[in-house]
């Protein structure tokens, strides 16, 4: 549906076409993602916005092939750098994941293993996907910790010894371990407060300049998304209802749903007109 608008770009890194994901149940199938198409360009931060249950996380899981039954990709295609992701078998998938696409989840406490140290979690990634030696792994882990602004000495600490923001930084460092081309971030800062949220996302932007990865960013916070992403897709009940640049989405939303999402977010310093509007709403 929005294929034309990205044609001017040379080659997208991620290309999702006509994707349908169904949740298969005994009674009936529920279509969670309904004919969704979008592209992500190299080095681009692309946002998917929508309320809970709109299918945005389901897309994140489909793109990384982490979806589990009863979720079933019933239609469409996903290509990463020209490679058909849906055609990969288990073994190829294992090679592909984390090397090409990695993921940062909402809750860093549950994404990290609480009973092993951070150093061991790094080691897990390198052991599973590379044949690096111990010393190399150590050196690389230190470098990654440094990259996200945590002193490398803390590698031997356990996840509970870090604050929520630091844990999410570690999750990002682990996602960067194999220098993937795309990082899927599913509400990475929803559990954090605004100050830490801004610090972490500025950090991601800086790292992107440095390393050149693309980001698929998922959140329900449209305001945040308009600051952080270059292009935004708005989802409603499994469909992509609007796809445009962040600027257009925030200044001139076309779809009613996008406009209503904006209306439900109270601005910090509202214009007089907006203030009156909010007084009616509240």
């Amino acid at each position, binding site marked *: 549906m929005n294929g034309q608008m990205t044609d001017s770009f040379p080659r997208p890194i991620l290309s999702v076409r006509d994707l349908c994901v169904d949740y298969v149940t005994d009674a009936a199938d529920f279509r969670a993602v309904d004919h969704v198409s979008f592209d992500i360009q190299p080095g681009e931060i692309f946002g998917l916005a929508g309320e809970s249950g709109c299918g945005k996380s389901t897309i994140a899981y489909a793109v990384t092939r982490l979806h589990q039954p009863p979720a079933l990709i019933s239609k469409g295609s996903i290509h990463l750098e020209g490679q058909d992701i849906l055609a990969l078998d288990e073994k190829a998938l294992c090679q592909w994941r984390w090397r090409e696409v990695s993921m940062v989840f909402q809750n860093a406490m549950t994404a990290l293993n609480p009973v092993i140290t951070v150093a061991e979690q790094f080691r897990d990634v390198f052991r599973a996907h590379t044949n690096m030696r111990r010393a190399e792994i150590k050196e690389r882990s230190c470098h990654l910790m440094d990259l996200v602004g945590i002193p490398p000495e803390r590698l031997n600490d356990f996840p509970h010894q870090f*604050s929520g923001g630091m844990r999410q930084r570690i999750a990002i460092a682990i996602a960067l371990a194999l220098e993937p081309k795309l990082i899927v971030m599913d509400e990475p800062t929803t559990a954090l407060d*605004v*100050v830490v949220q*801004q*610090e972490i996302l500025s950090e991601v932007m800086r790292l992107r300049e440095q390393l050149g990865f693309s980001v698929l960013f998922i959140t329900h916070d449209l305001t945040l998304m308009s*600051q*952080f992403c270059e292009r935004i897709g708005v989802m409603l009940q499994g469909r992509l209802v609007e796809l445009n640049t962040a600027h257009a989405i925030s200044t001139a939303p076309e779809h009613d749903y996008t406009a209503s999402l904006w209306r439900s*977010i109270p601005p*910090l*310093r509202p214009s007089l007109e907006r203030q009156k509007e909010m007084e009616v709403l509240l």
Partner: protein
Amino acid sequence: MTGMADEHMSKPDFGQDGFFAVQGLSKTFTKKSWFQPASHIHALRNVSLALSPGRAMALVGESGSGKSTCAKVMAGIYGPSEGRVVYRGRNLIAGKRRADRKVLSSAIQMVFQDPFAALNPAHTIEHHLKRPIRLHGLEQSGLDQKDRISELLELVQLDPEITRRKYPHELSGGQRQRINIARALAVGAEVIIADEPTSMLDVSIRLDILKLLKQLKEEKNIALLYITHDIATARYVAEETAVIYAGQLVEWGPTAAVIDDPQHPYTQLLLAAVPQAGVPFNQSGDRSNGDRVRAAAALDNDRIIEISPGHFVRDCRI
């Protein structure tokens, strides 16, 4: 309960400290370890707040700043290490006297952040509302009680006939939060402490819950403490805002003054971090400024400056 309400009606001017206030509140948590000397965490340091009926105060701060600890001490869940909790002129310290405790727990109620965890999945909504009424000895005859529950559900804008028999899992997050508010009202709460009541809800539902709290504040004359890290919503809900960091209040006053004319560097940091549409992030990723401000804001400082009437700020030098 009604007697007290009447007393309040005839004496509308309760003054700053007369209704519900905490004075010089400190809370220290001690972490004991077998192998290391005990360490102390000063979660609250000399916090004083006053709430008045029909008005709301927003308590704003980042995670770990002590805002939830403050709520729990005010609601009597924790006892303070120092300081007083005063309700209608009585000094109530939780756990000290049974009678005080009962007053505290029926007049002051909390609404928690997670509406999913706050309700028992094995019981119906009716049970959740009946139980506090019974525990606080507010029981009436069977028929009246049914009316009372219907009344409570209507108050939070839910259909009594449909909702009454349902279980928590059959309700949406927003509806569940409404039940939590109804439960607070069931025991005749005059003070509601809402600890991030909307942070787990969808953006489109958040406004409805805030609207409900605002309505209850105005119509039921409830004193509301609205705890949040979303300072943008404070403007619409609360007349006053207090910013807390590292367990001490750093700036407080009328909400508009605090948001539009922030004086404390930490308040400025907090406001700068609030997402604003169309303002792209700075890409420097510079954390040093934030760290410097936090370090300065965490220091003990007893010098308070009044910027304008009612707008106070703690002295802070970077």
